[in-house]
């Protein structure tokens, strides 16, 4: 009986500890994804500028070099582009894929889709620049939040677990 | 070896209170409360022995057992009021401590009225009319 009690107490502690880590990871992942998105956009920009490949082709290539969630976004929008125009495909892909990005980030990225494939190359490049500037702001914000919250949630998880255990002993 | 237990509890709680007071003074009060209760619990067994001895003696000497009961009650009230008063004083609330003290005293006097009246009766009986 006593061993069961101890094992369950340890399980409670581990659970809260990992919940804390999970929540804190969200902030780290957001910064990572935003950075990756920015890199992807700069690749997109250079490709548009120099290679004149069609957008689905470029997106396909980007999805090959990106990782995880960002990869999914580009892949989905490539798939969607077979059915609709580039702008709706892009925003649909953003809506559908599950990421650590916040609603605000998604809205900033969706701004890119409005002009995608509608203007000439110069217009698109300036649009990409604009989005990437917005992304810089979002990255700074996300960094700030990461500094503030990441450590807090980790400690919070561990300490709340400890409090539970001590109260239940 | 109960005295060692009591001293141990006292010193341990002292250190805990000193550490806690820096961070959260509210919890220090709880620790001192529990420490006081613990020590009282340790002592209470001995008191039970003393009380049984006293009742036995009073039975043997054919004393009025009513007085002994009152005496015990007064001791109990003094015990509890002292407990509460010292905790209030520790937390820096001497005003409340004084009120509890006053309440304890008044109740003790109220309880001991039979003894006082018996005493007065005896004196009147002894005095020449």
């Amino acid at each position, binding site marked *: 009986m006593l061993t069961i009690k101890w094992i369950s107490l340890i399980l409670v502690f581990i659970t809260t500890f990992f919940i804390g880590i999970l929540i804190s990871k969200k902030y780290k992942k957001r910064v990572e994804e935003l950075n990756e998105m920015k890199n992807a956009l700069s690749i997109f920009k250079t490709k548009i500028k120099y290679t004149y490949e069609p957008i689905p082709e470029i997106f396909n290539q980007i999805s090959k070099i990106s990782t995880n969630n960002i990869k999914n976004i580009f892949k989905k929008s490539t798939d969607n582009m077979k059915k609709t125009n580039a702008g709706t495909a892009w925003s649909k892909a953003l809506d559908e894929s599950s990421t650590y990005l916040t609603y605000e980030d998604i809205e900033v990225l969706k701004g890119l889709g409005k002009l995608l494939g509608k203007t000439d190359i110069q217009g698109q490049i300036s649009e990409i620049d604009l989005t990437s500037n917005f992304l810089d702001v979002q990255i700074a914000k996300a960094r700030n939040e990461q500094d*503030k*919250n990441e450590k*807090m949630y980790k*400690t919070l998880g561990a300490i709340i677990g400890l409090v539970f255990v001590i109260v239940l002993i | 070896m109960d005295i060692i237990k009591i001293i141990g509890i006292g010193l341990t709680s002292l250190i805990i209170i000193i550490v*806690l007071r820096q*961070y959260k003074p509210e*919890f220090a009060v709880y620790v001192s409360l529990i420490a006081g209760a613990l020590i009282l*619990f340790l002592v209470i067994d001995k008191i039970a022995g003393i009380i049984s001895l006293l009742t036995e003696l009073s039975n043997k000497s054919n004393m009025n057992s009513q007085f002994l009961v009152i005496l*015990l009650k007064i001791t109990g009230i003094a015990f509890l009021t002292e407990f509460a008063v010292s905790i209030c004083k520790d937390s820096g609330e001497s005003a409340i401590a004084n009120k509890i003290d006053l309440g304890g005293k008044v109740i003790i006097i109220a309880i001991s009225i039979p003894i006082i009246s018996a005493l007065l009766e005896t004196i009147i009986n002894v005095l020449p009319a």
Partner: protein
Amino acid sequence: MDINLLFKIAAIGILVAVLHQVLVRAGREDQAMMTTLAGLVIVLTMVIKEISTLFETVRTLFNL
């Protein structure tokens, strides 16, 4: 009723203090306050039980 309760209260007190610090550092003063309050209530429920047993024992002993 034993000395473990003392250590338990001390541990909860220290942990609540750490929680308070962490939350204040993260700029969440109101939540820090709430955790302190919750800790106090938890400890109070533990303490009240012991105090009531103490009073009950004294009452039966001195037949008050």
